[in-house]
């Protein structure tokens, strides 16, 4: 796989992946303190997918995401500080504290929402693609979904609908090996690429630890979509570093599975190695980004903690309808 990225793209890619990683590692530690309410499903280890795909998108393009949505949000341009505040349930959160981790959205940025319903996003992405097609905006849409979601009826229906309507849509199937405690090797019969072929849809499997591989596959699929060539599927194979949600003891995984992965297949390390070998960026530049992001996330947490909670009297019953 070639490293066809401009210097700017390389920096953007690394910085975005690092932002996601730092964000998620920090949510992990903060969650353990008990201060973050509710659930959190972390994307650490999977950064290359969101970033490799969203590299080719701009604000006229839309994505629909999943319960494990922080990475997609950041890659699609959501403000990490507003996201952190949302996760803490603050009034300053991206959704005013009403949505929380599982419902972060920024429709103006084309981020149509994390989603608490497995498989819930694919039909919505069809709709965004239909808007792009109908209004001839030149936009495309991406439906992110997990291996678990790939079995859900909505995914199959959406693949057929996207094909029949010839929508500018990319299905990104993020196969992190598990749906909760169930292995994708068991729950997904056949293969996603063969399933795509069942709908006459181009499909390709890529190594999800390698952002260049993801980006290359996404470039092709996005170009196909933009040029009227219809939907595609990308089967991204990788792993999550943390439990299904924070608190999951992961008894179903090999003891050293994650440790090994972190050591040998980490997308950020692999990126550093690859750009180092190819002498495209130097380590100092990347270290500087790391430091910058660390500060950003420190601030995000501090600001979130300092921010006000929504006011029950004023905020509870607003935003249900535009007008009622």
């Amino acid at each position, binding site marked *: 796989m070639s490293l066809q990225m401009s210097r700017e793209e390389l920096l953007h890619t690394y910085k975005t992946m690092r932002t996601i990683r730092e964000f998620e590692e920090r949510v992990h530690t903060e969650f353990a303190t008990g201060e973050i309410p509710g659930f959190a499903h972390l994307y650490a280890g999977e950064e290359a997918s969101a970033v490799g795909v969203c590299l080719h998108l701009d604000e006229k393009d839309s994505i629909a995401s999943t319960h494990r949505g922080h990475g997609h949000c950041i890659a699609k341009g959501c403000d990490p500080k507003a996201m952190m505040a949302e996760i803490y349930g603050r009034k300053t959160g991206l959704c005013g504290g009403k949505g929380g981790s599982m419902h972060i959205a*920024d429709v103006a940025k084309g981020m149509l929402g994390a989603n608490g*319903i497995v498989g819930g996003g694919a*039909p919505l992405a069809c*709709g*965004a693609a239909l808007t792009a097609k109908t209004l001839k905006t030149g936009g495309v849409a991406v439906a992110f979904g997990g291996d678990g979601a790939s079995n859900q009826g909505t995914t199959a229906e959406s693949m*057929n*609908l996207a094909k029949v309507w010839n929508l500018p849509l990319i299905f990104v199937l993020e196969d992190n090996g598990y749906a909760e405690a169930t292995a994708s090797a068991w729950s997904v019969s056949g293969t996603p690429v063969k399933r795509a072929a069942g709908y006459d849809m181009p499909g390709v499997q890529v190594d999800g630890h390698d952002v260049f591989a993801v980006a290359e596959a996404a470039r092709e699929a996005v170009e196909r979509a933009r040029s009227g060539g219809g939907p595609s599927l990308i089967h991204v194979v990788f792993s999550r570093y943390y439990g299904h949600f924070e608190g999951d003891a992961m008894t179903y995984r090999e003891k050293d599975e994650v440790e090994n992965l972190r050591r040998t297949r980490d997308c950020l390390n692999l990126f550093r190695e690859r750009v180092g070998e190819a002498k495209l960026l130097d380590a100092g530049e990347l270290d500087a980004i790391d430091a910058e992001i660390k500060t950003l996330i420190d601030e995000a947490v501090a600001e979130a903690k300092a921010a006000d909670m929504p006011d029950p009297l004023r905020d509870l019953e607003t*935003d249900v309808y535009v007008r009622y």
Partner: protein
Amino acid sequence: MSKKSFRQAINEAMHQEMERDPNVILMGEDVAGGMGAPGEEDAWGGVLGVTKGLVGTYGRERVLDTPITESAFVGAAAGSAITGLRPIVELMFVDFMGVCFDQIFNQAAKFRYMFGGKAKTPLVVRTMYGAGFRAASQHSQSLYPVFTHIPGLKVAIPSSPYEAKGLLISAIRDDDPVIFFENKMMYDDEGEVPDEAYTIPFGEANLTREGKDVTIVAFGRMVNLANQAADALAKEGISCTVVDPRTTSPLDLDTILECVEDTGRLVVVDEASPRCNMATDIAAQVAQDAFAHLKAPVRMVAPPHTPVPFSPSLEDAYLPTAAKIQEAVRMTMNAAQREVA
């Protein structure tokens, strides 16, 4: 103004709104018809012909046939609504909501709230409801109480061709998701309908009769039965107000309460299954907020707690009728009455 059928009124509303706003699109199974088939283009115009002619005018880019995948296309409608279109999606029979409810109640209905007010979802789901069609248990349900229960949805139930056109145009221009219930028994009903576009505001009840003894609240096709009952009762000397709330969400409770304050008696007529339905919803709110004005027990008229039967003999017995409404009104008149202020 001219005589039009309920079907024509709905068709005309869509025609005029699609003409007015290029972002309005229509989708559903065979709403155009004939995709991929050798025969003529506008073969069907919907299973009961309600969308007939639209594809001829607006083309297949704006009148989209779909595969039979309600989750995908109702969800696509929701996704298109938050990204700039104003979709009307036909969910043929409301009974089919079971295969796509998630996209309606967890997605479309909740976007705005979950996203902190930063989304609008101008989606209309047109759907058929109601018994009497000999269509049996899976094609005859009313189910609007289920949608009324869900915060974030609006629910409209037109009771005449005039109401249908005005309420549908309002629904299409509304920025929130609206579930629009069409009683399948009414498509051939005729009434005076203005030729030009007009709106009927949501949440404003219509009084089709005004009386002093009993307030009858009814929805959709039941409004006609309530009117018939009121006419018959008038001959017995019982004078009824008939309230058509038009929308169950938002509900014009104020008007209902005012009518009950005047009459002191309430009968609610609902075609939906009797538990947790609109009859209980309204009866309970009145018993809470206008209790002091009630002279007699509230009464509810609804079908029995059974699926809708197929056989005509059973289905006819299943449905509320004008006679049953009259009986309920007489019961409230004959019940031990109580003095009110």
